[in-house]
C-alpha cells in the first residue's frame, strides 16, 4: 500500500515535471497556414497543421506558394513568406514582468514581424539573425528578406 502510494507520488511528480518542461518549451502557436510548411524538430521534419505549438529551437521551412503565421505567447506576430527557412533560437517571456527576449534566424526567404508585449517594454527585445548580419533594430515592426547566397564556382 505504502509502496504503491510512493510510486503514484513519483509518477505524479514526474508527470508534473514533464508537463511543466513541455509547457515551458511551447512559445507560440501556428495561426495561419497556406500550402506546405515543414517543421524540423530535433532533425525530424513534420508537416505543420494549424494550431501546432512552436517550441524553442524549432526550424520552419515553407515551400513555394506557401506561408505560415505564428502568434507568440507575448502576442508578437510573425509571418513567413514562400521558400523561407527560419528558426526560433531563443525565446523568453515572463508574463508577470511582461519582459523577455527573442532571437530568430532567417536563412532564406521573407519574414514579417510585429512585436507584442516583448517590444512594448523594450524595443531591443527581438533580434533577427541573417546569414551575414544581425538585425537588432529598435522597433516593434520589421520585415526581412534574405536572398539565397550565391556560391562562387570553385
Amino acid at each position: 500500500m505504502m509502496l504503491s502510494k510512493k510510486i503514484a507520488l513519483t509518477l505524479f511528480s514526474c508527470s508534473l515535471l514533464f508537463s511543466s518542461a513541455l509547457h515551458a518549451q511551447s512559445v507560440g502557436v501556428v495561426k495561419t497556414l497556406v500550402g506546405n510548411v515543414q517543421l524540423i524538430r530535433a532533425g525530424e521534419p513534420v508537416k505543420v497543421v494549424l494550431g501546432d505549438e512552436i517550441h524553442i529551437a524549432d526550424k520552419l521551412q515553407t515551400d513555394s506558394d506557401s506561408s505560415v503565421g505564428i502568434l507568440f505567447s507575448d502576442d508578437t506576430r510573425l509571418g513567413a513568406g514562400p521558400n523561407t527557412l527560419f528558426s526560433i533560437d531563443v525565446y523568453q517571456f515572463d508574463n508577470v514582468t511582461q519582459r523577455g527576449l527573442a532571437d530568430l534566424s532567417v536563412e532564406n526567404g521573407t519574414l514579417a514581424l510585429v512585436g507584442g508585449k516583448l517590444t512594448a517594454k523594450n524595443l531591443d527585445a527581438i533580434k533577427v539573425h541573417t546569414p551575414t548580419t544581425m538585425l537588432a533594430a529598435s522597433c516593434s515592426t520589421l520585415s526581412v528578406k534574405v536572398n539565397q547566397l550565391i556560391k562562387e564556382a570553385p
Partner: protein
Amino acid sequence: MMLTNIFRTLCLLFIYAMISGCSGYSSAVNSFGPETPTSEIRQQIEAPLELAEGESPFCAKPVEPDPVMAPAMAALPAEPYRARLYFIFDTSTFTPESERAAQKVFDEIKSRQIAEAIVIGHTDTMGAEKYNIGLSERRAQRVRQELIRRGIPENIITTKGMGESELFIETADEVAEARNRRVEIDVR
C-alpha cells in the same frame, strides 16, 4: 554728511567715466569704416535663401511596399483581441452597460477567423472563497453559452473560474468592487 557727499561725487565720477569710456570705444569702432558689411562671407550668409530644385538626400523617402514581402505580411496572424465584461453583484447577469457592450464584443469575435477563445471569470472579495470560485465559473459559462449561440465552435472555447484570486482592483476581503466582478475574454 561729509562722507556721503564724497561718496556721491565719487559715484557720479565713476558713472561719467563709464559713459565717456563707452562712447569713446564706440566712436573708435565707427572710425574703422562704414557700418554696412563688406566681407564676402557675410554677404553670403545674409543673402536671401534660395531653395535648390530636386530632392534633398537628407529627406526621408516614404517606404514603398515591396511586392516580395506581400505573402509574409499576409501570413501575419490577426492581432489578439481582448474584452472585459462586468456583472451585477452575486449574479452571472451582465450590468446594463456590459449587456450593451457584449453585443459589440460577440460580433467582433464572430467576425474573426479565430482559433482559440479563452474565457476567465472573476469575482470581488465579498462572500466565501469557495462560493466565489463557483460564481466566477458560472460567469465564464454564461459567456461561453453566448459565444456558442453565435456560432463559435464549442471545442475552441476554454473557460475557467478564478474566484477572487486575481483581482483587477486590489481590495481587502469582503469589499464589494464592481470592477472585480468580471469576465475576461482573450481571443487569439
